């Protein structure tokens, strides 16, 4: 299992190390740094060195490198490292070098709780938060006055129960349960505007603040839509198999109840189209003309539209005019950003102008691609609908709310 963990910043310094099974010299990270130098954006997740195996992840500008000595499922380690970062984000609302350095004591205590002898011990955020309280100003002041510490001296109740994700004795004055149905459209659209591939990746994120031990049941109008689902451990799988309802005792606070996948059976509606034209010839000025318009949005406004065009290497600069939003072109990364915002159906956003091309460049084979971002509120593009939410086990009446959002996921247009 995991022998040691090193956390490395973007400039290649090891700024935190923790050892479990034995002390491994930090020089082992050199193998990782070498791979990172060779290809900063594409470091292999597993690196075999003569005596160790380095399994690493990169998130938020820091790399977590786990050192293993023996055969171990790589996904086991990768998944755990991501869980570590998730926990840090949960605690400190961010996971960057400065945040980790600032809270190194809590970080160290967390790592100590999460892993025992290289094997995960407590990774459930609810349990960890009871063991080690997240830092905030009020508590720090209180601790200095009363002499208490952030570390709990008793075992969290959840750890022993059959529902480790929920702590006991939760109490709220306003009992609320909010569900966000978020759908992301993944698509590849080819030059001619034909959809090569499209699918919907959906999530149901919850914010549940209910007292006691509520037992919730969530049902859908059209559960047959789902191709594939994955659940938070709290969901009773058999109820789902048999009745297609989500029955669960929720964790306290924010969590992801389920994620689902809709692809094969239903035709995925593409809510936006991009008309584009880029003509370049060697030794000349090129012309770029892009228009964005809504398509199949069921009458909802398309908002937060952003377009990123990854230009071919030969394009030096762009001189464009847009009728809506701002644009900028980064000549180093060759990316043209165009921030449109809300699409006005009466006057479609358009950007056009000239691009300057490097002399002598090979312009015959270029295929820039466009990444599109957008958001549509109050719409689930798959037409998924929550039917009802019932609560058992508690007497009070909770306030319930469901929100639908459609977003662009990995939405790519080939030019």
């Amino acid at each position, binding site marked *: 299992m995991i022998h040691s963990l090193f956390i490395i910043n973007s400039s290649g310094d090891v700024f935190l190390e923790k050892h479990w099974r034995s002390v491994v010299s930090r020089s082992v990270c050199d193998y990782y740094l070498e791979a990172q130098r060779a290809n900063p954006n594409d470091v292999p997740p597993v690196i075999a060195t003569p005596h160790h195996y380095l399994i690493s992840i990169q998130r938020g500008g820091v790399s977590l490198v786990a050192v293993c000595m023996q055969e171990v499922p790589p996904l086991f380690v990768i998944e755990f490292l991501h869980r570590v970062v998730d926990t840090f984000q949960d605690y400190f*609302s961010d996971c960057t070098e400065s945040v980790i350095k600032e809270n190194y004591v809590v970080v160290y205590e967390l790592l100590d709780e999460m892993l025992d*002898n290289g094997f995960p011990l407590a990774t459930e955020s609810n349990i960890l938060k009871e063991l080690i309280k997240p830092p905030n100003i009020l508590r720090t002041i209180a601790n200095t006055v009363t002499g208490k510490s952030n570390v709990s001296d008793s075992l969290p109740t959840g750890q022993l129960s059959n529902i480790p994700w929920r702590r006991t004795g939760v109490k709220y004055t306003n009992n609320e349960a909010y569900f966000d149905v978020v759908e992301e459209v993944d698509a590849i659209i080819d030059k001619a505007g034909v959809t090569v591939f499209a699918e919907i990746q959906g999530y149901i994120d919850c914010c549940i603040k209910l007292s006691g031990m509520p037992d919730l049941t969530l049902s859908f109008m059209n559960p047959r839509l789902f191709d594939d689902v994955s659940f938070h451990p709290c969901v009773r799988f058999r109820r789902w198999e048999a009745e297609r309802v989500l029955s669960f005792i929720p964790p306290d606070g924010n969590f992801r109840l389920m994620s689902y996948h809709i692809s094969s059976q239903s035709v995925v509606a593409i809510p936006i189209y991009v008309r584009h034209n880029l003509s370049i010839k060697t030794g000349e000025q090129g012309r770029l003309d892009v228009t964005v318009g809504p398509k199949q949005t069921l009458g909802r406004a398309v908002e937060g539209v952003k377009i990123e065009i990854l230009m071919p290497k030969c394009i030096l600069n762009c001189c464009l005019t847009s009728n809506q939003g701002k644009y900028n072109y980064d000549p180093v990364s060759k990316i043209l950003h165009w921030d449109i915002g809300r699409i006005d159906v009466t006057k479609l956003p358009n950007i056009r102008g000239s691009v300057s091309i490097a002399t002598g460049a090979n312009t015959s084979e270029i295929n820039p691609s466009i990444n599109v971002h957008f958001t549509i509120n109050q719409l689930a593009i798959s037409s998924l609908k929550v039917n009802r939410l019932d609560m058992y086990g508690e007497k009070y009446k909770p306030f319930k709310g469901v929100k639908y959002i459609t977003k662009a996921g990995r939405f790519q247009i080939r030019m």
Partner: protein
Amino acid sequence: MLSTASGTMSNNGSYKNDWTPGGMEPDYSIDPASGGFFHSDYKKHDDLKEMLDSNKDSLKLEAMKRIIGMVAKGRDASDLFPAVVKNVVSKNIEVKKLVYVYLVRYAEEQQDLALLSISTFQRALKEPNQLIRAGALRVLSSIRVSMIVPIVMLAIRDAAADMSPYVRKTAAHAIPKLYSLDQEQKPELITVIQKLLADRTVLVVGSAVMAFTEVCPERVDLIHQVFRKLCTLLVDVDEWGQVVIVNMLTRYARTQFADPNLHDKDGDSERPFYDSGSDVSEKASPPALDPDHRLLLRSARPLLQSRNAAVVMAVAQLYHHCAPKSEGPISARALVRLLRSHTEVQSVVLDSIASISCQNKGTFEPYLKSFFIRTSDPTRIKLLKLDILTNLATESNVSVILRELQTYISSSDKQFVAATIQAIGRCACSISEITDSCLNGLVILLSNKDEAVVAESVVVIKRLLQTQAADPKEIIMHMTRLLDSITVAQARAAILWLLGEHSAGVPRIAPDVLRKLAKTFSDEHDIVKLQVLNLAVKLYITNPEETKLLCQYVFNLARYDQNYDIRDRARLLKQFTQNQSGKIASQATRIFLATKPAPLLQSQFTGRERLQLGSLSHYINTRAAGYEPLPSFPEHPPPSEVRDVEPIAVMQEAKSTKSDKSQSKKKLFLWESEVSSAPSSSSGSSSSSSGSESSDEEATTESDDQSSEPGTNKQKEETESSSEESESSSSESEEESSGEQSDQEKDNVKKPVPETKLNDNKPKSNLDLLLDLDDIPITPIMTPSLGGFLTPLNNPTPNLASPIQVVPPSFIPTKGIELLDRINGQGLSITYRFTRNPHLFSSSMVNISLTFTNTSHDDITDIQLGKKNLAAGTSIHEFMSITLLSPNCSLAGTLGIDFNDSTNPANLEILSSKGSSNVHIKPNIGELMRPVTMSEEIFVTEQSRLKGMNEHTANISLASTNDLSEKVFRAANVAVCPSTKQNTLRFAGQSLTSSSLILITTVIKEEQVAITVNCEKMIIGSMLLNELKLVFK
């Protein structure tokens, strides 16, 4: 964005006071090259030491935080060890935790000092708070000091029987740690593992299986009994435990069940002979799986819906390696879902998918489009997806794939483009219908401006033509025509090579090409020149009439080339053109125009099936350290009866449910509805599955029948190990009334101690029954009273209560020691004597007889104890106060003192009519024990248990060996134990307060005596040894 910023700000603020100026900041920004480094460093440690020594918790905490900062940064903080280790006793939980962290990091380097902390952990192991117990065990087992192995072993054994499942989980975690420290403990650890595997709590099971796979994966026999339980509990185990269990069960399945695809393989080879109708009938009756095999697959299936990628992968590999081929696609969808996850996950999953798709195209064909490549993917992912796309290519979908591949060629990622062209080649190779169109497409690519594209296309064309039986004439002619326009050297060279190989097919063109190239020879690139020479020789061999002169001309040009490689090659090849009669020349055809083997165009993932899917070894495509290859299915699977659960376990389960109605309901709900109904509702309800279910039900009903309790038969069951016997005993006790049962239940809860201890050696015991109770929330209430009993050091003897017997002392000192002389006592003198008899008030008190003598001429009245100044933990039972002591008279009194196993003197004040006087009684360590005896066998086993730090030895030269035992008796209140060895004497005693065993062994070797003292309390052992040394001298 704004909210994050404010969040950081607040963090900043909150932790500001943890960062003293000059504290952490320089740690991070320190420059090792600067001159003041060592100096300032040294000084800073000094102030840290000061802070650690202070009385204030806040200062200590501050210091510890800074030290942890140094540890985190990887800087050496080992010189602070002595200062830090002292604080292990700190009451402040956070300080304690940080000290633990520090200790684990540096204990290995400072073994001697680390031992100082051991007793603290031993004490913490008896704490009523389960978190502290577990924490102590975690740290104790993490200290990698081989001396404490026996202590850790003892702690693990006791923790494995703890009331709290959390502590038991920690015990499971500690097992691999101890195993890595001392491999010799394996047999004992295995018994603990066996016990933990039988645990019913989901919290424990995952860790127990982890310990099993790390310590004794070869002991498949341990799994038989728990197999069905593991399968049913699988859904409820935490995600990390699920991964470990599924991986372990995959191995188990490979050794215990028949190959589910055995019949399929036959079917596959015969398939062409069957028509479709018979095929269907064959499918209708698949070979029946072992019900347990089916149970495993069925209970793992819901885990495919887990949010944890590692769990999904573990189940996918289970299905891949152990399920019938027809069920393989079940896991495909879940694996494809993982492609939405982080790139690292994608990379590993794609790797596995590529491997599966090599062997089995059908599985992932429906998800073909999920493997289409985006420009934003990292190169690694792109290449993996490309490989999968190529693997999945069939006649029906190849057009879609090719269209995709075409768009990829214009990517700016060169490595990716090259791989794409190779992928086209592979598609063309595997699907004959498209070979021609692929070739044409590739030929078009030859005119690409990009050198890499051209070179790769030529190479691929070359390979394709080699593998093709068809006539390549057309293409060669086309390529020859392109020769004028292509400038890329590699491509030109490749064309020339092809032309040379197939010159017989194009007899008119080849000499003409050579003629053209002869003209431009001097301007060509080196590799082209070499190929021109090759072509020339080959043409000369096949067609000497037309090309002889041309060939000679080319060779002459080459002879004076600037590049020596070319001159060399020319010299070499010339031998074949000039000297026709030479021996070499006669073999020219065989040398140059031999049929060359076609390069193999296949996925880089072929051949990986020998490695377990999803393993580290599979990913790096070589065997990693500690990798055990998956065994192949046995030809004749072992009988499945071994997995039939022994009724004793079921019975206990039934009992615990009966004992508490409400609890039983809860239990049923939790594990029937959560777990075992999972398979039933999964509605597979195939004929094979119903078999196992019904057997489960049988087991439950059986348990209901045998609802008697084993409580009354405790003794019996302890001695019985076989299930059958216990079964019979339980049926005997069936008649017992239920009213009695509840009483016994109470008994069971109240005094589990002797049982626990006794059962240590026996894996199957009604200890499990006790463990079952811990789901009840009353556990914490019960713990305080039990905590003391359950701990190892307090009283290890009860577990041997019967074999170890207290005996009367062998020697009683008669000489009194003066406590108060008559001058200080103003006429009252007191002497005391250890009677070595148990005190009536408490067995842990030392019995001291006092003699009061009045040497004055007046009566002394009211002699009594005044102030008592006692060390912590000691207690005293006063003597009867004496109302009158006449002159020259003596009276006796008896005093009982519990010294708490320490030789700290008891300071007393004696009041009398003559005034008060202070006295103190200091016992010898030898008086603080009671003599016991035991058989030699037990003596030896106990002794072997008390090795390491608990053993003290010394060699003493002795004048005479006659009165050896008498001397021992004089020094310590012990008794002789039988010894069969000559010259060896054994003595045993028990400390009064803690009842720790004290074993003394003396071996006489010519004038020398080797004395060995074994005692759980290290201090007692070493003090006793010193005293014995004194006596012998």
